[in-house]
């Protein structure tokens, strides 16, 4: 037996062919994974993180960003002031990530993300309105490009609205909603969070069996646009977790109590938990959103 025939013989030891392996996950699995991956933010090699959800888009000019870091993320489209965005670009020591905003303090959100990612505290950070409709956070020691202005906060109500709409526990992803049910739910969310004068529109879509779960929040036109999309599986880990968390959202507890209950419910799963102190709330609110992993956000008062 020559070396070549030895290798040929070894081929017979292969447990499964490429075709059979791919078929094991089905065509649906292949397509769903493609859709899921293509929703991830890009620009940094890192662990899976929350997908760039259907948030009001922002643009960062590549050339400007390259002047700051070696890599640059491409954001989407701008419309309204930077403060009314719900994501933030963190450009820290060569690391480039776009993350959904959580606390309303972009520098804080980036610092927390950096620490999670690298295990060390970042340098002092400053958030800027990048003059292109977005917020970019840089180290304090970096000189921002011309036209960038420091910005302290983002609209926390918009951030919560986005979480609330994307939510798998009680939001648009809590089940397969038709246009009517999704519209009613979105209107209820707007009303509860104090968004007066906003309207809900539904984008027309072709196809059957669609669920109206995607959304675009546009502060410039005060419109939430709902979009019917193909349904996600209902037996997924994140759907099951949402089922476990739903009863918790019916009770009125403090932030620490809610966070502890969430940790217990999610034990054994890969997830990221963000807690946001908000003493204006009487009871803690729990949101579950999904991107590269399961993201759990709890907002509420320190004490009841």
């Amino acid at each position, binding site marked *: 037996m020559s*070396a070549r025939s030895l290798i040929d013989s*070894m081929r017979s030891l292969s447990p499964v062919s490429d075709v059979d*392996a791919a078929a094991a996950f089905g065509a649906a699995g292949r397509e769903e994974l493609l859709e899921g991956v*293509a929703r991830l933010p890009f*620009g940094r*090699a890192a662990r899976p993180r929350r997908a760039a959800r259907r948030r009001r888009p922002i643009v960062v*000019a590549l050339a400007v960003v390259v002047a700051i870091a070696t890599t640059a993320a*491409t954001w989407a489209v701008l419309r309204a002031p930077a403060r009314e965005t719900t994501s933030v670009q963190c450009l820290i020591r060569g690391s480039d990530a776009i993350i959904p905003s959580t606390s309303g303090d972009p520098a804080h959100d980036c610092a927390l993300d950096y620490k999670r990612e690298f295990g060390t505290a970042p340098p002092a950070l400053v958030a800027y309105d990048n003059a292109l409709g977005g917020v970019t956070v840089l180290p304090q020691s970096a000189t921002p490009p011309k036209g960038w202005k420091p910005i302290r906060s983002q609209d926390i109500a918009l951030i919560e609205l986005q979480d609330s709409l994307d939510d798998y526990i009680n939001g648009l992803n809590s089940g397969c909603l038709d246009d009517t049910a999704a519209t009613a739910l979105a209107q209820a969310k707007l009303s509860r969070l104090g968004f007066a004068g906003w309207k809900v529109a539904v984008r027309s879509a072709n196809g059957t069996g669609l669920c109206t779960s995607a959304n675009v929040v546009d502060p410039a036109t005060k419109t939430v646009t709902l979009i019917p999309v193909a349904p996600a599986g209902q037996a*997924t*880990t994140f759907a099951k977790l949402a089922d476990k968390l739903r009863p918790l959202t019916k009770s009125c507890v403090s932030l620490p109590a809610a966070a502890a209950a969430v940790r217990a419910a999610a034990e054994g799963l890969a997830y990221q938990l963000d807690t946001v102190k908000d003493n204006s709330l009487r009871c803690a609110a729990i949101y579950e959103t999904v991107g590269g992993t399961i993201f759990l956000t709890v907002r509420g008062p320190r004490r009841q």
Partner: protein
Amino acid sequence: MDGDAHDHDGVMQNGVTQRRERFEAVYRELYAPICGYTLRRVRDPEDAAEAIAETFATLWRRFDRSPQGDELRPWLFGVARRVIANQRRGERRRSALSERLVANFDQAAFDTLGPSDDTSALAHAFAALSDSDRELLSLVAWEGLSREELAAALGTNRAVVRLRLHRARKRLQEALEAVNARPPAQIRLTEGDRA
């Protein structure tokens, strides 16, 4: 100014769309090979799904900086190899991405696939090799990588690959001889063959 902003939006949106289209083309070409690579090494469907999802998520994030053309396939095997190695080191996690595969996994169909109880001398000899040797030889036999592609997959150079491959084949020969009652004198492992 508004017009400029809209023009800029259009350019950026086109870039994002083109990126997605390029990625999708690569995904469709390499999905089956990566599924095959992974399921040949990871039998647990959930672990395999996690590894496949993480491999393509890595490709998506690094797409603008990943190798292009012929170098991309072996590079992606290298990514999958590292992801699986991390799983074996205990860095297991269940991501929402992998749920999309797990939810569609056909266990019954999968169980009927492949030689599950190969008792040949070669199978015994192969099983007796180190993880490193098995991986090297299987990259050649199962994934069909050339030496250049092996170097890309393993992140090393061609000379090192050649040496490691020579030694792995030698060890396989020795293991085979040990397993076989009759040492296969006809087995000659030469360096002239394409890896």
